[in-house]
């Protein structure tokens, strides 16, 4: 009895207990109280996961979505880094253009989602561009903040010792930018996931948005919940990769 009380006091045990309790509640609700047309119990969702992957075209749709996420993330980082350095390295450029960047960042991009589809079609291109529009702002912000925090004396002394522009970037600016840059990458991943998934849900022919619509219209909660779980797991893995990278590199910096 003592022993169980002690294990209960460990937070992660209790946390697991809460999760199990919620799952049990969901299972009970889906089995006895709610119309099976709308909700499906977790046991059935998990059992039908193999069948979900047998759905014709679904593995390909997941691949398309993953590809869109990867391209959108890479473009966000590249564009964000370029704009961030261009705006951040010069105090005058920073003062002039940061308010414009902040203004654009503050406008709700979802309102122009239909425009992206009109311009870039209903294929992967519009999802990628929409994902980039969500992903590159955090990178710009953190790159500018990171560049701003470099002590001017470092830049001056590197300059005085005859470092070229590229050498200053490579040996002074980049190493100092890395922690905030990785924090920006984490935010960018969140943004890219949101942007790409929003665009997928809005209109999609080949990606997962097609299947969420299909399963919703067919009142097939088992496969819908399965697909949502798979996507959520994908998002968690992607976020975790970026978070680990951030931890790794910021530890390196502080040493």
């Amino acid at each position, binding site marked *: 009895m003592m022993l169980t009380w002690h294990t209960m006091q460990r937070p992660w045990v209790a946390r697991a207990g809460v999760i199990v309790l919620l799952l049990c509640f969901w299972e009970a609700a889906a089995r006895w109280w709610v119309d099976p047309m709308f909700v499906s119990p977790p046991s059935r969702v998990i059992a039908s996961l193999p069948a979900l992957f047998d759905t014709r075209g679904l593995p390909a749709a997941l691949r398309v979505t993953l590809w869109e996420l990867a391209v959108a993330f890479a473009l966000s980082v590249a564009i964000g880094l370029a704009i961030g350095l261009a705006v951040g390295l010069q105090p005058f450029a920073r003062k002039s253009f940061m308010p414009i960047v902040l203004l654009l960042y503050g406008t709700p991009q979802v*309102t122009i989602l239909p425009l992206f589809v*009109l311009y870039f079609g209903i294929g992967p291109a519009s999802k990628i561009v929409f994902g980039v529009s969500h992903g590159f702002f955090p990178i710009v912000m953190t790159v500018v903040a990171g560049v701003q925090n470099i002590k001017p004396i470092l830049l001056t002394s590197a300059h005085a010792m005859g470092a070229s522009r590229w050498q200053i970037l490579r040996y002074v600016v980049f190493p100092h930018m890395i922690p905030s840059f990785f924090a920006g990458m984490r935010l960018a991943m969140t943004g890219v996931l949101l942007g790409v998934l*929003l665009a997928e*849900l809005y209109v999609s022919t080949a990606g997962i948005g097609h299947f969420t619509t299909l399963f919703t219209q067919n009142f097939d909660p088992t496969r819908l919940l399965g697909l949502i779980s798979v996507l959520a797991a994908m998002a*968690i893995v992607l976020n975790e990769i970026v978070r680990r990278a951030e931890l790794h590199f910021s530890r390196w910096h502080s040493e």
Partner: protein
Amino acid sequence: MSGNQGETRLASRAVQVAFLIALLVLWYLATTRWRVSPLLLPNPLVVLRDFWSILITGEFIGDLRVTLTEFVSAFGIAASLGLLFGYLIGRSQYRIQIFEPLFAGIYSVPIILFLPLYVLLFGLGPASKIALGATIGFFPIALNTIAGFGYVDRTLVIAANSMGASDLQLFRYVLLPAALPIILTGMRMGFTVALLSIIGSETIASLAGLGHRIVYLAEGMEMAPMFAYIAFVVAIAAILNTLVSALEARGRRR
């Protein structure tokens, strides 16, 4: 020195204004001189005229009412549940250790994924949007309330207790003032994401509302009114966000 700084500020203002004017001029030239199809980019003057007529005729009122009603309900649910759970969890270190990682974990998943499920459960009407806005708004509010109440300086609490403060006094004079700034930040974050998700979910699947209106115009290729409505929604969002930021700043000062 200060004169020099004033000059720089003036110069950067000039750059900003010039940038925006250049953008508008380019837009105007693209539609008139370079013959970009009005199906892709409408003439800015036509957009301005449509914007004005939308304001004058008041045809936006129906959609605005739908969107705002959904938003107010969603934010109300998110704020009351977020504050309640945040307070209950934040008052004990043990409960913080159990629930905070759980909430933070769910918050890191793109909650927009729940939208198809909510549409299945609650239909295409306002209910599914309210559910999504409430879910998305709940987490920043709850997490910040947990942080606010959870990390009040222990010395303050012990001091108040030893001086014989009642529970109510402790809450009113120690816990609340310490937690309020963080809670207000959470409320503002919840406000913004709830508003965005309401408009976003209206764009994806709905029967009415401002997001639905934009999609409807896009599908009809009515570009000028669509741009006008986009400007209208951006303006509404900007006004609401400015209002809530001002409220937050006021709440912090007290």
